[in-house]
């Protein structure tokens, strides 16, 4: 059996990659994918702990996170498509009409 802390290290790395992706990538879609990576890293942590403790509650939590993430995807993609229609770009550096 693979020890739990291997999973924890992997999910910490995935979470960091995701967070870094949000901060450095400029394409709204890629930023969004990075956020999904963060959520899935958290899911992996949850499942790893649930296995270690032999608890189902952690696995159930992951189902809720996945369902909510799907709802978020629906809203997020709708927003990105709307913006692409009016600007022909989804580069977040071009989102600079509001500043001060």
């Amino acid at each position: 059996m693979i020890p739990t802390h291997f999973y924890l290290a992997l999910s910490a790395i995935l979470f960091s990659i995701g967070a870094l992706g949000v901060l450095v990538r400029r394409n709204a879609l890629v930023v969004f994918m990075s956020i999904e990576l963060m959520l899935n890293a958290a899911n992996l942590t949850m499942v790893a702990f649930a296995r270690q403790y032999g608890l189902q509650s952690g696995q159930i939590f992951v189902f809720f996170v996945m369902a909510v993430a799907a709802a978020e995807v629906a809203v997020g993609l709708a927003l990105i498509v709307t913006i692409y229609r009016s600007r022909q770009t989804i580069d977040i550096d071009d989102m600079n009409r509001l500043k001060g």
Partner: protein
Amino acid sequence: MTQLDFLVILPVTFLALWASLLLLADVLFLKGQKAILALLAAVGLAVTLGLTLTQSGAHSASAFGGMVVLDGFSNFLAALFSLIGLLGVAVAYGYNRRMGIERGEYYALILFSVSGMMLMAQATDLLMVFLALELLSIPLYVLAAFAYPRASSEEAGLKYFLLGAFATGFVVYGIALTFGATGVTSIPAIAAAVQAGTADTFLLLAGAALILAGFGFKVATVPFHMWTPDVYQGAPTSVTAFMAAGAKAAGFAALLRVFAVAFPSLAADVAPVLWALSALSMLAGNVAAIAQTDVKRMLAYSSIAQAGYILMAFVPFANEAIRPSSVAAALFYLVAYTFTSFGAWGVIMSLEKDSGESAAIADFAGLGKHNPALAVAMTVFMLSLTGLPPTLGLVGKMYLFRVVVEGGFYWLAVIGVVTSLISAFYYLRVVQTMWMKDGKPQVAKEDWLNFAIAFSALATVVLSFVPASLFDWASQAVFFTAR
């Protein structure tokens, strides 16, 4: 699962069902008839408020295996959230029509968001906290972009969505680590595990820090505030008013519940962090607000500063004796902030041009001469935000400063007073522009908007003369006796 379980979440259930029905009803009414939907939404919220008030009392009931609870705290906040929803519908009705964004789903989204806020106040399991957070946030992402294809609104929606989802990632990871540290997600069970010393301290601290960062985004404290000015400025002002009051109050509700119940033993470690967040928010928010010429941006920075003031109440958590009064002070200030900010945003809405371009401070010139009633109301709101008499803002700040001083954090109180003085500069500049400069302000005549402004102004002034009754209600709302 018993009948009692459903009674505990009766107001939330009713509101969510009503919102779903409202989405269906939207199909039945054609473009010119959307006023009926506003009325229906208001009725739904009024019934929810009524149901909430019938539940008030000194009892507390836990339901669904400890997932949700009904206690004074949740009851107080549920009443506040229904009120925020009602005000949100009232200010949106005429404004959305004027801006050409009168669409039926607006009201359903407001109702869904309010039900998320109410669930947030009731949640006693981190799973429910997460679900409630998403239920309140996802409709707000849509609402921020509601004025599409206006570029600024789309941009506000995307920025709010990306940063909100980013913050959610932190919250979920924080919950996962907390689960790893304790093996449970129920907030009282976490507290018990921490008490028994079976929890892994490192994982618990990391989890608490991530949850704090995630909610820091939601309530807009420095250094998690970057989205606030852009989103508040770009979103339709009716949405901004709702979001500024509602999302902030809900975020603080969750923070109070999670940090006061689950992590009190961490309070000594977390207090310096909260101290810094609070002080930075007050300083950065107030200083940045001075430089603004756009009123919406100015109020956005002001809301960051206000989050800092509310956060002051969290700092003395390590002190058992002060905890109840600090929770009461935070709740009291949330009420004060709700009325004041709703009113101020309402005045901005009535001055906003039809193009959707937000008003500059200079546009307020001459308001005192042309529309004295509106100018008086705006003066009240500005005084309240500064913390000057005779307003609720002053009383709220008094309570906040008192708990901080009792907790021994004198420097934080000093920073609070000094930043309040700094804030007087930009708040009173609006007052001065209204009364002492000449101009021809364009004021929209909308009955419900004016009603909401008048109601907020009256509440701000009248309640400040009888603060004791409201504070007593807030004190009864303290939930620590429940466990």
